[in-house]
């Protein structure tokens, strides 16, 4: 009797090499149990230095006020909210990979979901910093929370898209964190049960919550993961939709468009996958995980990048078309003079965005380039630069020439503390990522084990005999006795 388990050989294996369950544990958990390399220390120190610079930049802004930034009367959001939307967009890939691909039954998610979810959480943390410190008086930040207070009570305005954002981002952060952590429990238990040192026994004993791997617990955990995925799928779409409402519900030319929600969501997935690519291409190399994050995984993500990049391209074209077609003078001015005119003050940003987001990803139609890790890495960086430009274009070009031509004189460029704040969030992001890569397994080992016998290379080879069998014999041997 054999339970038919192997996948067709026509599909590329998701786990390369001759692996068994123990080998998977060794490969994935091994890096947690070794001392960090010199490269890790160098990277970690750079991240910490950036973080320190960021903390100082934020200190300047808090201590001396928002005038430390070059934001002006009309360009009120500047780099700050650009960076917020950029980070929150990056934070969309993790939940997309873990939730939407889980619902679609895409097995390749198992190789990349853990790192992508961790990246999501760190990116959302970075994103959250920007609106909080943009408030100026950050110590009054709790005013955004609706609670019965002694100030009236004064409640926040529930009609405001900015308040929706507070709920959306905090819910997204919480759910992503829970989703990530409940998936992490079995792997933390693996480390705990292998632990030799006292620290590891104590630390992973605490963090694994006493996970045993009992069948009943697995059953509940799978049910939990499925429902959380079902909840997180509309959630991930709602978060960037609501972020786009911050703009779409206003009356600023260039923002006041109904295409914003799908356009922002596609852009978010686009930039998020690019960030996952750039992190994982480094991680798989440094931690020697090429067998688990294969070229096939990279190719699959590149397909998502070319798809979402093209959606974003269509969105750029249609908003340009609608701006003209609407015959709205202000709308058309914003698009024609402030964006599409290459000789306008920010024309360079618009064409930089078009080049990075629409033109360059088209190279991924070539299978050879999709399967080239080095090329993908540079492409991913380019996409993230492009997506940053997209947000910059949306915010700055719509506001630097407002309705009153007398306020047109200002050319907005950031101050050193605005740049420092942005670099500081890179520091925060990479500090967290380096710690994560050191103390947690970057691949979901338990989930890899669950697909090992269907998608592992050495197991798929056993399909040869089954695939060469004629159908009657196959039915006799494999199906009749299988139950």
């Amino acid at each position, binding site marked *: *009797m054999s339970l038919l388990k192997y996948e067709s050989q026509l599909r590329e294996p998701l786990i390369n090499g001759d692996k068994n369950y123990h080998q998977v544990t060794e490969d994935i958990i091994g890096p947690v149990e070794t001392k960090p390399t010199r490269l890790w220390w160098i990277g970690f120190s750079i991240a910490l230095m950036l973080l320190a610079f960021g903390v100082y930049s934020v200190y300047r802004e808090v201590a001396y006020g928002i005038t430390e930034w070059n934001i002006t009367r009309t360009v009120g959001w500047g780099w700050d909210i650009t960076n917020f939307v950029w980070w929150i967009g990056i934070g969309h890939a993790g939940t997309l990979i873990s939730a939407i691909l889980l619902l679609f039954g895409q097995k390749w998610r198992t190789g990349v979901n853990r790192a992508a979810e961790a990246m999501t959480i760190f990116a959302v943390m970075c994103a959250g910093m920007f609106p909080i410190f943009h408030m100026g008086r950050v110590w009054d930040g709790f005013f955004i929370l609706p609670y019965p207070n002694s100030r009236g009570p004064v409640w926040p305005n529930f009609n405001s898209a900015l308040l929706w954002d507070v709920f959306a981002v905090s819910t997204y952060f919480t759910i992503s964190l829970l989703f990530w952590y409940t998936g992490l429990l079995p792997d933390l238990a693996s480390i*705990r049960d292998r632990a030799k040192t006292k620290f590891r026994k104590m630390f992973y004993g*605490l963090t694994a919550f006493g*996970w045993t*791997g009992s069948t009943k617990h697995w*059953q509940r955990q799978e049910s939990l993961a499925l429902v959380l995925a079902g909840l*997180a799928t509309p959630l991930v779409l709602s978060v960037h939709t609501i972020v786009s409402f911050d703009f779409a519900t206003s009356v600023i030319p260039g923002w006041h468009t109904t295409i914003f929600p799908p356009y922002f969501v596609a852009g978010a997935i686009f930039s998020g996958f690019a960030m996952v690519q750039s992190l994982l291409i480094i991680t798989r190399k440094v931690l020697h995980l090429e067998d688990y994050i294969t070229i096939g995984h990279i190719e699959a993500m590149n397909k998502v990048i070319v798809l979402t990049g093209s959606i974003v391209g269509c969105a750029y074209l249609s908003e340009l078309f609608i701006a003209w077609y609407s015959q709205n003078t202000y709308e058309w001015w914003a698009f024609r003079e402030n964006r599409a005119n290459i000789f306008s003050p920010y024309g360079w940003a618009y064409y930089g965005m078009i080049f990075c987001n629409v033109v360059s990803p088209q190279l991924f139609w070539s299978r050879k380039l999709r399967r080239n890790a080095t090329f993908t890495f540079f492409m991913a960086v380019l996409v993230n630069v492009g997506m940053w430009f997209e947000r910059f274009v949306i915010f700055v070009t719509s506001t630097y020439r407002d309705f009153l031509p007398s306020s047109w004189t200002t050319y907005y460029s950031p101050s050193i503390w605005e740049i420092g704040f942005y670099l500081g969030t890179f520091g925060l992001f990479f500090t967290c990522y380096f710690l994560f890569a050191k103390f947690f397994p970057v691949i979901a080992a*338990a989930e890899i084990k669950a697909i090992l016998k269907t998608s592992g290379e050495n197991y798929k080879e056993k399909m040869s005999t089954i695939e060469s069998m004629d159908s009657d014999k196959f039915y006799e041997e494999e199906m009749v006795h299988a139950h």
Partner: protein
Amino acid sequence: MIKKFVVGSFEEEKVLFPAVKNVRRAGYKLHEVYTPFPIHGLDKAMGLRETSLHTMGFIYGILGTTIAIGGMGWIFTTDWPLNIGGKPHFPLPAFIPIAFELTVLLSGVGMVWTFCWLCKMMPGVKKHHFNLRSTDDLMTMVIECTPSSNEVEIESFLKDNGAIEINTQDAEEGWWFGRYDKEQQLYKEEDLEIVE
């Protein structure tokens, strides 16, 4: 409570499944099967009922929607009816984003809380681990000894069914607070000899 268990570990799922069936057929008390990864169908083979965690998720979700719509409605119509640009005091479409977010938030947080509560999991909880390799590569089947069962017989039964590591353990079946880096003595009720 301390009980006696016979523990058998398996390497392959296809050996484990018939063994689970045979254990149930033979009428032994199957305590639990510990596996390093989720094995689909094992819960059915063991005769476990479907979890109703998702029903709890639904209840928490409805609670979230109710709190959101009810709370915002009460604030804007009763507690402090503020005139915001002449807009209605109960603008349902504008309440939808927050109502949706709170639905998801309460449902997610509530389900994870219920999951931890049902599985008896939290930081600082310690449980007996019958085989440390059951989070690595072995599937560990644990059969509880009842007064009528013969542990030698169960051991040979497990051996016949393909188990590779077989032993008998006295273990606490529940959970307790403790640290994994510290060994703990199990508390046993012993017959005290009373010295006159």
